[in-house]
């Protein structure tokens, strides 16, 4: 079981209806891209999947658990298994990169370990390993306010990579990166998800990135699922309808496809989302 939504609707406190009657089933180990104009409800959907927002209507099951029907302890354990990369990295500017990354395991660590690590980082090795995958290994002990927007976004990503969640969510994780880096990073996400056998859902602004890297693409418009297709079956007319409000379909432009773009064709790993 990856996750499933049935008739999920959500109205924000300001009265904006962000989601209406969303039905969605994603199996364990699937990799899904969310596309759609800004304001379509992608962020809200991802935050519902992260058990950070409670829907007003409908039924929700994440990794086999209904988060809003569970005890607080169960909810915390569930959240520790879900990782969300936020679009604007919510990291305190004065925090050091190592601390920001190690925070990924706060849900799994006992309290004493969280507190001790704040004074003396307990797993710099692990943090550096994830940062190095994103080409940031050298910035381990720097303060986050010394980084550029794109670098900060990669720190936020390293945090969730370090968390090793069973449900990997990413909200426009490459919006502050240049096309070549975006390509590499999206490929890395896919590689990580297939290697560990976990479910990946990422919203992307650039449609071509989504089509190139994800087997399944979901178009979201005005809080509803407009289409839900294998990447090869998405037609241009559907994309034009999806972005009717914006006038054109956003593209990253084809960067040189890196070798790492294709997941390693090893034996399929055991699925981790049951």
């Amino acid at each position, binding site marked *: 079981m990856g996750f499933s939504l049935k008739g999920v609707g959500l109205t924000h406190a300001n009265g904006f209806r962000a989601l209406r009657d969303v039905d969605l089933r994603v199996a364990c180990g699937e990799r899904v891209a969310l596309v759609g104009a800004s304001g379509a409800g992608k962020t809200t959907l991802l935050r519902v999947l992260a058990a950070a927002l409670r829907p007003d209507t409908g039924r929700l099951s994440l990794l086999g658990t209904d988060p809003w029907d569970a005890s607080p302890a169960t909810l915390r354990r569930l959240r520790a298994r879900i990782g969300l990369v936020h679009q604007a990295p919510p990291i305190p500017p*004065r925090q050091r990169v190592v601390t920001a990354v190690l925070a*990924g395991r706060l849900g799994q660590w006992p309290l004493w370990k969280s507190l001790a690590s704040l004074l003396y980082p307990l797993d710099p090795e692990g943090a550096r390993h994830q940062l190095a995958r994103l080409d940031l290994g050298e910035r381990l002990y720097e303060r986050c306010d010394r980084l550029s927007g794109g670098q900060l976004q990669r720190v936020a990503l390293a945090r969730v990579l370090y968390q090793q969640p069973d449900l990997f969510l990413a909200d426009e994780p490459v919006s502050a990166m240049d096309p070549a880096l975006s390509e590499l990073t999206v490929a890395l996400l896919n590689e990580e998800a297939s290697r560990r056998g976990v479910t990946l859902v990422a919203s992307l602004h650039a449609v071509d990135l989504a089509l190139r890297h994800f087997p399944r693409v979901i178009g979201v418009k005005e809080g509803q699922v407009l289409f839900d297709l294998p990447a090869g079956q998405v037609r241009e007319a559907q994309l034009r309808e999806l972005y009717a409000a914006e006038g054109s379909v956003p593209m990253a432009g084809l960067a040189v496809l890196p070798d790492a773009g294709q997941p390693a064709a090893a034996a399929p790993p055991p699925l981790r989302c049951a």
Partner: protein
Amino acid sequence: MRAGISPAGVFGLVLLAAAAAGSFAFLEMPLGALFTGSAAREAVAFVGRFIPPETDPAFLAKVGWAALETLAISLLSTLLAVLGGVTLALPAAGRQGPLARQAARFVLNLLRSVPELVWATLMVLAAGLGPFAGTLALALHTTGVLGRLFAEALENTPRAPAQAVTGLGAGPLAAFLYAVLPLVAPQWLAYALYRWEMNIRMAAILGFVGAGGLGALLYYSLSLFHEAEASTVILAMLAMAIAVDGASAWLRQRMAG
């Protein structure tokens, strides 16, 4: 071009003048007598008794000891107030529901509204004469002040980082330390240092009511009409205040980097 004073301003000035005149009349202050020749002569003679300051080594040692005591009172009370202030600021910023918020605000207002010296008279009763009473008194009042300032800083802090960390399954304490404290710490620290500057001045006079430090020495000296000694103590107070201002400015600059 608009002139400096509007009609409302004129009205305000008249009101102020009336209030001031009324106050002087109520207090029956012989303002005129202050500016007569004999008053001036008396004042000059009085000031003259303070010069030169006492420099007897034994007395200087006493002043030095009292100055250290004053420094200890100001530092410890500020430290305690930071702890108390943080404890009360969290509920006062509405993080534990509206009921806790009202209760915490009430306590903070109560602590803040009672002046340090009044707390000191009460603490002298509760803890006996001496610097401990002064430390408690300053800590209580400063907790009220800092708690309110800390709560305001908390309320103006973005919530996204803390929400992100609770979204990872972290508990409230871990979320606070990882995602709230780094955001508010610089401002909290600046407030604490600023209160330390105030507290060194207050710690110097708490001795008037028996709560230790330089104030006790000044009070005795003046009671015994040893003006030269009093003048040494006052100079020590000035020096302490200036030194703490400098230390506080230096720390603030270091922390801002």
